[in-house]
């Protein structure tokens, strides 16, 4: 538990900044909604006629006149990108930073096994992701109530659950990468997340690229699908979880045997 406590303490600053930033933008979006609501009927028609541009973001299928429709697209992008970046950065730096900051010699010459360090670091990444999602969900629900909108629990909870799973998947994959690198991992983490995001845009635009949804975790977090179907695509989600587990297993296999840089 010492490593876990230490990790959480070390990451406290970054966690607060990311949570505050994402939370703030989501709050701002929701509080803007009442003003935009009246113009949204028009906007929905416009978006519906914009063809592939709208379909890329799932805007052709959602009704902007409803809060949930608006929330799924606007807030979906904020949490979907911001949260995923945070998960990627947390995962990819978790193991790598010991070598980069040259603290590996200090940490790994204490009687704590590498396996234990890996486990506690992984738990720390997951705790931060879960905690951030709980905070954001509370903020979102409270602010929806504050603007006097009815809260559609099923859709909101499903949507946030999908977001959480996506972040855990990205965190797990990046954790695996973290075991291989010993410097400059943040770029890789953000790059992978951005690539996943664009793969989903492509899949949304063209039916021929639909298979990409099996690869990118944005396949199962797409707000328009979740809100319209009132369910998450279980196949996409399961495949995503397999990717996450593979990432974690790779981290253990690689890092327990890794020659650590001085």
């Amino acid at each position, binding site marked *: 538990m*010492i*490593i876990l406590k*230490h990790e959480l303490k*070390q990451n406290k*600053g970054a966690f607060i900044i990311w949570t505050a930033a994402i939370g703030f933008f989501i709050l701002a979006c929701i509080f803007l909604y009442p003003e935009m609501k009246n113009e949204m009927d028009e906007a929905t028609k416009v978006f519906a006629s914009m063809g592939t541009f709208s379909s890329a973001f799932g805007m052709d299928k959602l009704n902007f006149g409803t809060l949930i429709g608006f929330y799924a697209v606007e807030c979906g992008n904020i949490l979907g990108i911001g949260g995923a970046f945070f998960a990627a950065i947390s995962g990819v730096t978790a193991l790598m930073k010991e070598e980069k*900051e*040259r*603290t*590996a*010699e*200090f*940490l*790994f*010459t*204490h*009687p*704590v*096994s590498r396996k234990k360090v890996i486990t506690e670091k992984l738990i720390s990444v997951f705790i931060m992701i879960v905690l951030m999602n709980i905070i954001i969900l509370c903020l979102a629900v409270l602010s929806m109530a504050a603007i006097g909108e009815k809260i559609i629990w099923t859709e909101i909870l499903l949507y946030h659950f999908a977001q959480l799973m996506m972040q855990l998947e990205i965190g797990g994959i990046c954790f695996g990468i973290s075991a291989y690198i010993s410097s400059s991992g943040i770029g890789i983490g953000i790059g992978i997340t951005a690539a996943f995001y664009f793969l989903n845009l492509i899949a949304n635009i063209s039916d021929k690229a639909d298979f990409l949804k099996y690869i990118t975790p944005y396949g199962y977090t797409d707000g328009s699908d979740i809100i319209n179907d009132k369910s998450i695509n279980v196949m996409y989600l399961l495949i995503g979880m397999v990717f996450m587990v593979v990432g974690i297993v790779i981290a253990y296999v690689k890092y327990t*045997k890794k*020659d*650590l840089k*001085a």
Partner: protein
Amino acid sequence: MKAITTNNLKKKYGDIIGIENLNLSVDEGDFFGFIGPNGAGKSTTIRTLLGLIAPTSGEASIFDMDIVGDHDKILDSIGYLPSEINFYNKMTVKEVIKLSVDMRKKDCSKKAEELCERLNLDTSKKVDALSLGNRKKVGIICAIQHQPKLLILDEPTSGLDPLMQKEFFKILSEENSNGSTVFLSSHILSEVQSYCHTAAFIKDGRIIVSDKVEKLEETGAKKITFSGTFDTTTLKGVSDLQQNEGTTSFLYTGDIKKLLRLMSESEIKDLTITEPTLEEIFMNYYEA
């Protein structure tokens, strides 16, 4: 029991050899100096023993425990000071020292306090604001506070001022007389000569000699220093020949009578014959 034994220990980094067939033996309770120039393999040996890197072949044990199989157990009885030590930013000295004992599941606050006082270290400062020497002191405390059975120190005195170096060796000597085995790597021979009981020279990843310091000092070689003209080319057993402002010096392992006879026939103004320092012996090994 041996504190450290290595048997044909080898570490390769790709094609580059770090250490090759290294055979080292350190007795329990010894004060051992591990000497070699930069890049000779000192740190590679230490990092392999500590399990930071895996050996390519060969084996090694610490207190009869295998460095690969019993890695976690071994670390319980070791205190280690890296040559370049870094800590987690944003932490204070106190927090780092606490983290170190927490990971050992021990309480050594009294010993830590005593060491901080002796080394004159302010524990309320942030570690990232510390100078190299003060960071080293934090590392020394983390290595020593739990009074390990084996202390492994990689170039421990770099960055410490002479007064602190003296205090540091005093602490080490005390730990050693309390039963701790001390294993330190260095390229400063005078400190090895004054404090270590045993020393080993490492060159290109191999141990070239390992013996008691007194034995190494009595290699039979004498250091000859003279002024005047004397031709050494006809003599056997001459090494480390140096000329400096009219005086010439060399290490001599040959027949002393022959040397004196030849010298008496030459134009010699001054002559001294002394025991060579460890440094000179060491240079002799490296150039050989």
